[in-house]
């Protein structure tokens, strides 16, 4: 049955009574995330991305507005507990989310808290190790792993709890290119098996891997578009302090010089084929 999350006019501030509402971290956000989607949330530092992430898995409670899972309002601590079970979260710093002295124990930690039986744990551990590509690492000490491997271990620990949704909060920003690519690849694989992937980032190049892209700026949603439509509107990203993909910058520059290219392109591929015919 899965997990659909709906935010209805959600506002958030750590100390809501101390600040005027225009300075709040999340301002009047209404969004729906359906089971199986692959979504990127982009925004510059301080845009409210991480606050939104914490709202989505019950770490923060909306100061105003409502949150629903499959149409049922999340009100009590019991509801939020259930929400945390359904929505797993991977943080930015790989060193901050490892709790046990071995890979095996680290994956078991979350399951222990859920009361999973030993037999079931053993099966799940092998499954998730294979899923993240760490089979054979059971006895390793986490501090001997590379950054990318640590992030994959963190993902394995979350997967073992069998969530419907995984939130990645800038989970690639501290990794080298190899580690980064392995995590991005894993996100696609998780999406392929039906898990909702929500990737929070400020890198446009990473965001464009998702099917749907949400732009946050000063706590509010500026855009919420499928990737295809965003590509055509990506020049706007600049005003919110975000990267505009280079191919779009090129497209715009050439149009200004009077090149006969279509006014809206949907992908780099399309731009390349148009330019080729002109040369």
């Amino acid at each position: 049955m899965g997990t659909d999350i709906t935010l209805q006019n959600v506002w958030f501030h750590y100390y809501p009574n101390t600040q005027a509402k225009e300075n709040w971290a999340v301002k009047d956000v209404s969004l729906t995330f359906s089971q199986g989607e692959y979504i990127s949330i982009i925004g510059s530092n301080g845009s409210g991305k991480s606050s939104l992430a914490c709202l989505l898995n019950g770490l923060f409670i909306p100061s105003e507005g409502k949150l629903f899972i499959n149409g049922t309002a999340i009100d009590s601590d019991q509801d939020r507990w259930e929400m945390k079970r359904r929505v797993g979260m991977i943080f930015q710093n790989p060193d901050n989310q490892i709790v046990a002295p071995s890979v095996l124990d680290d994956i078991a930690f979350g399951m222990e808290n859920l009361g999973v039986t030993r037999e079931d744990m053993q099966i799940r551990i092998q499954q998730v190790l294979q899923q993240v590509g760490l089979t054979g690492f059971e006895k390793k000490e986490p501090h001997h792993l590379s950054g990318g491997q640590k992030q994959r271990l963190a993902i394995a620990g979350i997967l073992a709890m069998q969530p419907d949704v995984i939130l990645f909060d800038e989970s690639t920003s501290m990794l080298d290119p190899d580690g980064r690519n392995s995590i991005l690849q894993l996100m696609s694989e998780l999406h392929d098996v039906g898990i909702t992937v929500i990737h929070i980032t400020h890198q446009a190049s990473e965001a464009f891997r998702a099917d749907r892209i949400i732009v946050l700026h000063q706590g509010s949603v500026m855009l919420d578009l499928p990737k295809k439509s965003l590509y055509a509107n990506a020049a706007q990203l600049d005003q919110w302090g975000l990267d505009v993909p280079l191919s779009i910058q090129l497209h715009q520059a050439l149009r200004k010089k009077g090149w006969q290219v279509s006014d809206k392109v949907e992908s780099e591929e399309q731009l390349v084929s148009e330019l080729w015919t002109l040369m």
Partner: protein
Amino acid sequence: MDIDVKELSYVYQKGTPFEEQALSNVSLAIPHGKIQAIVGKTGSGKSTLIGLLSGLLRPSSGSITIGDYHVTSKTKKIPFRSKVGVVFQYPEQQLFAETVFKDIAYGPSNQGVSLKGIEDRVQQAIKMVGLDETLLSKSPFGLSGGQMRRVALAGVLAMEPSILILDEPTAGLDRAGSEQLLSLIQSLHEKNQVTIILVTHQMDEVARLADQVLVMDKGESAFYGTPIELFSDKERLREFGLELPTITKLINHLNHRINSPIPTSIFELDQLVAYLEKRRKETENE
């Protein structure tokens, strides 16, 4: 101060079961005032090389010459330490003082600079990194991540190094933060003639800033030359586990379709646009 590194090697925990050769026979020459990029995968020896160049580690063999100072495995006190400033990865984690002023002043006060001198240097450093003077009396821990990083950088600049080593200076910053930092590096290089050694995973930064680039692989120097040379060979780059700069990827994408290829020595969008314009005009005149 020119830097000349000859057949430099370093072994960690020599003579123990944990002995590990982290660097073997690396040579490089960095003329004064240049921007040298050092790239390579995690574990390729970049950090060891930085440790040696900054005088935190002593070579196991080989030599480092910086200006008139010469260091070998026999050197007791490394003489160039105060000339080389290092901004480590995530330098904001190293802030410690109760005010921004005290944090920036810590380095020069250890160098024996007079009180008045320290005051001047702090003022100058905070200006260089583009932060407001009113922040000097504030706690560094109340600042944003990007501001904290610039305070940490100011603390190194206040020591007036002639050589500045930056280890992934833009990691984790958003576009505005990265842009500010890269422009700052460029202006330090141009106005103050500081030699810059930039360790990075970002090939866009290498293409944009570096005069020369060293690729480290398994503790050895795998490539030493200009960015244009490095990015001209896609296969070799893949062997090193490195990516192409975004603009080079785009040019290669275009080159799949175009008969006479666009040169991959173009690293700026303006240059690419100008080049394409020229090509189009030529085609029209034919």
